[in-house]
């Protein structure tokens, strides 16, 4: 018996899933250990082994693959706990990151001081060198100025260096020479080179991404190396793979090299889970909706594939590596309701977090949160929270919501319903922007509800968007770890095409892609012996536009002389999908070519189908809840529901970690996997 194990380290819990050759799945959970996540991981493996009735060593000895999502890079950025970084850059251009392209977030706020850059000005060093816009050397790299800069870096005490020269995306000659000198003179210092991290035009994006890489790199490398060691000591002889922000996985060495590409490693698992759900249910258009306590992650699975974007921003830092397209909304069950000076009800952006938490937690939180409103409305049962292990204070919830009601001149129930309505609207807004901005109609999608707070709000959010179907997978609480089991290996490369104003020729297109394919497939081959698929895409724009659109080039007639016409046609069509118009008479500029080599990992086993339930489908109890009016609502236990059970709302379904609310117009069916499938009326 061989296992594959998925491990997702979250803020509170580390989730683990093991799958065997027959597709049998076992879950494990253990508290996360933020100071050294590998401790929690090892404890989780103990737990998992126990559930498999094996010793940890036995289990690991028969595990061929561990797939891991980590939040080490994410946390380092959010908490500003990364390495001390110095920047080596072209003389006369050392303020690029602090200039932020001249932009400021809140247009009407002229009294907040500017954000602190990751690398302060006195750690940014200019070197005499310059390339022309076509990549030719204008000023050779000056040895003396390089030596001086390296000496200054040494004095600064920086442990990690970002190297980014202008136009190095076309010609890395000076960056390579500088890196060679740096590694020689400052052994042990970590180095990130822009022509390696993101060989693409636009200096702000490149320098910012390279700096982030330098900032999180040493921590990610240290963590992954430690984890690898611990696993080896515990008897693991298989391969350890890390999920990257683009949703594919890569070996430890690659994840350490491109550490900036791991900042979305955590949520990437959830999207893989979503993709797997789409596959199992044959439901190719899904909106994964992961609503938690303080934030909600929304993404998109369209035609079975998750969309990627290079617009990423995390903790105020621009990261232009291609990543899964995830919209994170700072709102969730812990969002605080308040009334502003104009008498308008606001929900968020402040959150009660987990400390003190919603008023009902009884930890001294006074503010009314979404969770408190849900208790007032009867959606959540204060006594049954976390399977009754952690009862909530319903009176405290009511008192907090009552304060909001009083300042609005509304009844308790009206205020609670208002809070619920506003948060639903915010969630719907997030989904609307995510879908419409990408040229897709949300009504064609089903909502995949997971995360602790999603189930209470999913049907109303869906109704707001005219979404007709909601799926609640049984593995909802460990969806990320489960999704990791199905990740493929992925290596991406890109190249900027330096045009001379003329239209790109079919030969040039073929040349660029042939080179990239060789590079990508070659690299992947060194990690992986299985079949490799290649995905091609290009970023293009109309002549004077500055935003490029990512266009898939798969399935074109590559040998056809009309290749460029076909490519441009794809671009026009995509532009029209996204922005309602195409300008077919306008010049199209080819900017970046991208190739992803994908190593397809064999999938073990099928999802287990359940026999139709022979038990009656009956609620365990009823309770008063607000569905436009107060009514006695049947409350079902998820554990009692089986394949084939079905009923109409209003109803509430309770499980240990989540509650699902369905309205009077909605109908719930339990499918052959034991998942909830809700038709929204």
């Amino acid at each position, binding site marked *: 018996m061989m296992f594959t194990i998925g491990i997702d380290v979250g803020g509170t819990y580390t989730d683990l899933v093991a799958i065997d050759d027959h597709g049998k799945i076992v879950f494990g959970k253990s508290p996360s250990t933020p100071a050294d996540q590998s401790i929690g991981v090892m404890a989780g493996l103990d737990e998992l082994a126990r559930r498999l009735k094996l010793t940890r060593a036995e289990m690991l000895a028969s595990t061929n693959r561990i797939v891991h999502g980590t939040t080490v890079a994410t946390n380092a950025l959010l908490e500003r706990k990364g390495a001390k970084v110095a920047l080596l850059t072209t003389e*006369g*251009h050392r*303020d690029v990151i*602090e*200039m*932020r*392209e*001249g*932009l*400021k977030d*809140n*247009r*009407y*706020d*002229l*009294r*907040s*001081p*500017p954000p602190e850059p990751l690398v302060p*000005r*006195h750690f940014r060093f200019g070197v005499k060198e310059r390339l*022309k*816009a076509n990549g030719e050397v204008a000023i050779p790299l000056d040895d003396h100025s390089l030596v001086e800069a390296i000496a200054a870096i040494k004095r600064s005490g920086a442990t990690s260096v970002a190297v980014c020269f*202008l*136009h190095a*995306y076309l010609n890395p000659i000076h960056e390579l020479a500088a890196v060679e000198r740096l590694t020689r003179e400052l052994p042990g210092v970590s180095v990130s080179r822009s022509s390696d991290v993101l060989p693409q*035009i*636009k*200096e702000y994006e490149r320098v910012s991404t390279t700096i982030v890489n330098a900032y999180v790199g040493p921590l990610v490398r240290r963590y992954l190396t430690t984890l690898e060691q611990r696993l080896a000591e515990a008897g693991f002889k298989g391969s350890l793979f890390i999920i990257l922000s683009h949703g594919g996985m890569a070996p430890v060495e690659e994840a350490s090299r491109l550490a900036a590409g791991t900042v979305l490693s955590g949520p990437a698992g959830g999207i893989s889970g979503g993709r797997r759900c789409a596959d199992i249910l044959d439901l190719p258009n899904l909106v994964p909706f992961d609503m938690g306590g303080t934030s909600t992650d929304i993404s998109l699975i369209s035609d079975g594939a998750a969309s990627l974007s290079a617009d990423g921003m995390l903790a105020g830092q621009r990261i232009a590596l291609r990543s899964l397209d995830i919209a994170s909304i700072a709102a969730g069950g812990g969002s605080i309701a308040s009334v*502003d*000076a*104009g008498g*308008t009800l*606001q929900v968020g952006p402040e959150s009660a977090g987990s400390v003190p938490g919603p008023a009902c937690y009884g930890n001294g939180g006074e503010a009314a949160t979404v969770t408190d409103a849900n208790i007032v409305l009867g959606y959540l049962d204060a006594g049954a929270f976390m399977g009754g292990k952690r009862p909530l204070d319903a009176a405290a919830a009511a008192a907090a919501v009552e304060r909001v009601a009083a300042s*609005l*001149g*509304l009844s308790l129930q*009206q205020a609670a*319903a*208002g809070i619920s*309505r*506003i948060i639903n*609207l915010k969630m719907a*807004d997030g989904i*609307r*922007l995510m879908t*419409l*901005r990408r040229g897709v109609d949300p009504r064609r999608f089903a909502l995949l509800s997971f995360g602790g707070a999603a189930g209470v709000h999913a049907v109303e959010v869906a109704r707001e968007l005219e979404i007709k179907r909601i799926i609640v997978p049984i593995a909802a609480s460990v969806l990320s770890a489960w999704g990791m089991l199905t990740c493929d290996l992925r290596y991406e490369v890109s190249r900027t095409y330096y045009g*001379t104003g003329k239209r790109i020729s079919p030969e040039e297109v073929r040349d660029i892609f042939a080179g990239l394919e060789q590079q990508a497939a070659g690299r992947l081959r060194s990690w992986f012996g299985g079949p490799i698929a290649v995905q091609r895409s290009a970023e293009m724009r*109309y002549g*004077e*536009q*500055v*935003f490029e659109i990512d266009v898939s080039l798969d399935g074109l007639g590559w040998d056809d002389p009309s290749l460029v016409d076909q490519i441009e046609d794809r671009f026009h069509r995509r*532009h029209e999908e996204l*922005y*309602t*118009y195409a*300008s077919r008479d*306008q010049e199209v500029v080819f900017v970046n070519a991208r190739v992803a080599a994908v190593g397809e990992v064999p999938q073990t086993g099928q999802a287990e189908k359940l026999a139709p339930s022979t038990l009656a489908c009956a609620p365990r109890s009823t309770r008063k809840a607000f569905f436009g009016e107060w009514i006695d609502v049947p409350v079902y236990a998820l554990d009692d529901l089986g394949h084939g059970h079905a009923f109409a709302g209003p109803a509430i379904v309770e499980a240990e970690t989540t509650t699902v609310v369905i309205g009077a117009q909605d109908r719930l069916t339990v499918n052959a996997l034991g998942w909830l499938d809700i038709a929204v009326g």
Partner: protein
Amino acid sequence: MSLNISAKIDPITRSVVQHRLSSIVKEMGEAMLRTSYSQILNSSRDFSLAICDTGGRLIAQADHLPVHVGALPWATLAVEQRFKDVAPGDVILLNDPDYGGSHLPDLTAFVPVFADGKRLLWTVVRAHQSDIGGATHGAYNPGATEIWQEGLRVPPIKLYEAGRPREDLLDLLALNVRNPREFRGDLAAMLGAAHLGERGVAKLFGEFSAPVVEAAIEAILDATEQQTRAVVSTWKDGVFHGEAFLDDDGHGRSDIRIAAKVTKKGSDIEVDLSSSDPQSTSFVNSSHANMQAAVAMAFAYLIDAEIPKNTGALRPLKVIATQGTIVWADSGRPVTLCTSHPSNEIVEAIIKAMSASCPERAMAGWSRRFRIAIQGENPRTGRPFIWHLFQARPGGGASSGGDGYSSIGEWHSAGGLKFGSIEVAEVRFPLHFRQHEFREGSGGDGQFRGGLGVALDLVLETEKPAKGNTAGDGARHGPCGMLGGEDGAPHHYRLLSEGREPRVLLTKEVGIELRPGDCLEIRSSGGGGWGPPGKRSALARQRDREQGLTAPDAPAGRGAQ
């Protein structure tokens, strides 16, 4: 009356409608940003989106360029006056200052939204065109003495009738601008955004019914007014004076004074600009709508950033001005510079006056705009090119909240103008950005230091001579220090040309002869300081030294190479 209606709407419905309207304008902005054609729009974001009602009231807007927003109601009123017969599918366009336009390059498109056969709202898109005809490219014509020299004047016209484009009018417009292709692309983007908004608002009407949405809008405006008054009433009452100066008008007049007398009583503010200097013969005049917008902008900066910027927020504000003055020129006068100058001076005069009423809110001076455009032939393509300076963003003012932003912009843009990538600029234009770094020592000293401007050395890599134009102000008057803080360093641009004496560029020049290899030595201004320099902490001073922020301006006379 409005209070009666709004009393009928419950606060929850109101919140829901407000939320929806603001997400609609956000979506419009997103579409505009990603689809517009010219750099001034897609990169520099010189556009604004709004929803107005048929009474010209601003209902919702997206935070783009503050200086556009307060002007849109006046344009909407002009459209209402001109057309009584608006049908679904119509699109109306205008730019003229006699009809609520700010200046000719800003085209404004209006799409009506109907509910139950009744026209209720407009979605509005205002966007700065890279050219609008006239004597010079890009409309900034320091030589202009009448508006006809500044470009094509467009009164309210129907560009679409019941969904059908008036191709003849489109051709007329496109024929009158220098870059018809770009123009058509930008116009398509504007209309796309306006229609996207129309669909969103129509859906809102469909869901809630028109009477409910209308009542909710009244309630939203009332609530915003209440919120604004709550802030204003905490400020000190009194009559306060402030003034600011334009360097010159390029036609012989200098130190043109903009004077603000602000009377603050309770929750009301009256801004009286009528003792400002007489109008000019040149383009430094303000149009009426732009003057209104500048006053609204100053007010918006003083109240809380979170308060929605709609008509309700402006109800406590009364504006008095006299036609024929620099802030409100007679019809036919040139006005192109007005969205930056005298807008920036109007804002500065008002904020200075208010520093005696709400000192913690009055920020030190943000910078003024000094633009350069270069026109020549690109030797790599053999094609003509036109380049506008958006780099070298000047510094922002300090405030009670801390030091100012460096490389951020002017009062009227305030961090809303994105300068493009230098790598992309070097690929597209025959230009070499030899240096583009903070201009050390340019921020005004104070308890909190003004943000830094930028030092840019720009070398021309053409094979043939090119022409340069400048337009702007602020080479004599730096951004003002506030409450004891010092002024920021003013702009200082020079032309370094082999075989010619280095010379200081004036802010309003036409036809500057630029030779291959010439270097434009651009030093943009720093922001003003806030509070007495003596109060600056030792730690902050040490940090300034360590980071090289306060060192004197390095001599940059390396000459043309």
